[in-house]
């Protein structure tokens, strides 16, 4: 096996072309040893095109090789994409967050990867370039072929960065997960919520749940039912019930039964919406209106 560290995007693409399908992109590499090794690895994590977080007018651009630790600590994301910063802060452990990247979290295609759940809640789009120099943009939730299988082909495609609209006035978001431990544990269930409030009413709601399907899953029926309702305890309880009904869940011998997972989906949806609405109203955790 060969291991090459690409200096920039062009070199990474060139190494993929030379590999003719046998070379594969990696970034943080934290999932590498859990899989079969390919013939050649191209390390993307030092390429300037995939690094950094920046704001351009109302948009946020996040490089694919930004680590979870960088994203969680970024004031730009804490403010403009709270749900994403919060989700990134709960991946694995400090050691994993220092190595693993947002691009890797998506392309590894695990069904309840925290960062991916946050990205889908933000409505993030991935910008992808291939060895023929063609660029395309896709919604993050459309990058999943199946459980743990990405539609991004790492032997000829490179995920460059994510683009999303940052929170505007009256918007707030939150990420809630439940696992058997607070650290180093995959979630039994997670919910991300983004809301926009106008005069105490929910004008816009985005709710994402995982694991439900191979990709983090928006719940549009629930979102629509909540529109126009007041930001209140009754609304969050209704949301919890609706989410319990809306999600299809599977039991897992390692983590929990389907029944418990469905229960968690409701509880976490209530909590995520309540916290998102608090933030949208400019209140801190613990304060009520």
């Amino acid at each position, binding site marked *: *096996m*060969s*291991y*090459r*560290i690409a200096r920039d995007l062009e070199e990474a693409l060139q190494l993929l072309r030379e590999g003719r399908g046998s070379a594969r992109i*990696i970034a943080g*590499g*934290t999932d*590498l*040893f*859990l899989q079969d*090794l390919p013939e050649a*690895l191209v*390390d993307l*994590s030092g390429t300037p095109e995939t690094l950094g977080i920046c704001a351009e007018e109302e948009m946020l651009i996040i490089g694919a090789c930004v680590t979870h*630790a960088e994203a969680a600590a970024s004031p730009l994301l804490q403010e403009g994409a709270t749900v994403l910063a919060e989700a990134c802060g709960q991946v*694995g*452990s*400090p*050691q*994993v967050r*220092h*190595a693993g990247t947002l691009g890797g979290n998506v392309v590894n295609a695990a069904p309840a990867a925290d960062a991916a759940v946050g990205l889908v809640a933000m409505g993030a789009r991935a910008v992808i370039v291939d060895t023929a120099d063609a660029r395309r943009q896709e919604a993050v939730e459309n990058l999943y072929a199946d459980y743990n299988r990405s539609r991004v082909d790492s032997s000829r495609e490179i995920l460059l960065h994510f683009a999303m609209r940052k929170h505007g006035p009256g918007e707030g978001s939150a990420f809630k997960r439940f696992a058997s431990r*607070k*650290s*180093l544990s995959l979630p039994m269930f997670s919910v991300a919520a983004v809301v926009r409030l106008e005069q105490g009413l929910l004008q816009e709601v985005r709710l994402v749940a995982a694991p439900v399907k191979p990709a983090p899953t928006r719940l549009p029926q629930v979102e629509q039912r909540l529109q126009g309702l007041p930001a209140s305890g009754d609304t969050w309880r209704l949301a919890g019930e609706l989410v319990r009904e809306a999600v299809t869940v599977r039991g897992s011998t390692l983590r929990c039964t389907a029944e418990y997972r469905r229960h968690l989906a409701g509880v976490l949806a209530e909590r995520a919406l309540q916290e998102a609405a608090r933030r949208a109203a400019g209140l801190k955790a613990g304060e009520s209106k």
Partner: protein
Amino acid sequence: MKKQIIRFRLNDEPVELLADPAQSLLHLLREELELTGTKEGCGRGECGACTVLLDGRPVNSCLVPAGKVEGKQVITIEGLTRSGEARPLQEAFVAAGAVQCGFCTPGMIISAYALLKANPNPTAAEIRSAISGNLCRCTGYKQIEQAVAMAAQQGRGSSTTTKEN
């Protein structure tokens, strides 16, 4: 396995060796460079016993492909011990009874060192968060938290007590 030349800085000294880039950094350190202070616990990123600093940040060396360290800076527990930088932490771990079987200790010291370097005055919650990727099966963590707080206090050279949360 095809070997390639890997050059990096290890504990502040340049290293150049011919090695398999697809092995883990942990394996490279222990088996090829004979630095056995870094421990192998789970070998899959779940216990933190193998924590080292890669360009100053704590990572699980069992998950880092050896090829990735090319051109980078790696600090292991041996490096911290030799330079004396871990001394306040080492003394605090002994004083607080934070070492029992000792297998998690090198990784704990590395994580605690990275915390204090970035944040010399951590809260109790920040200490718990910093060592949340390091499992200990003996102590129940209390003594380790106390040891890190003691080292922080000593580092500040004052008798102010640690903030709660």
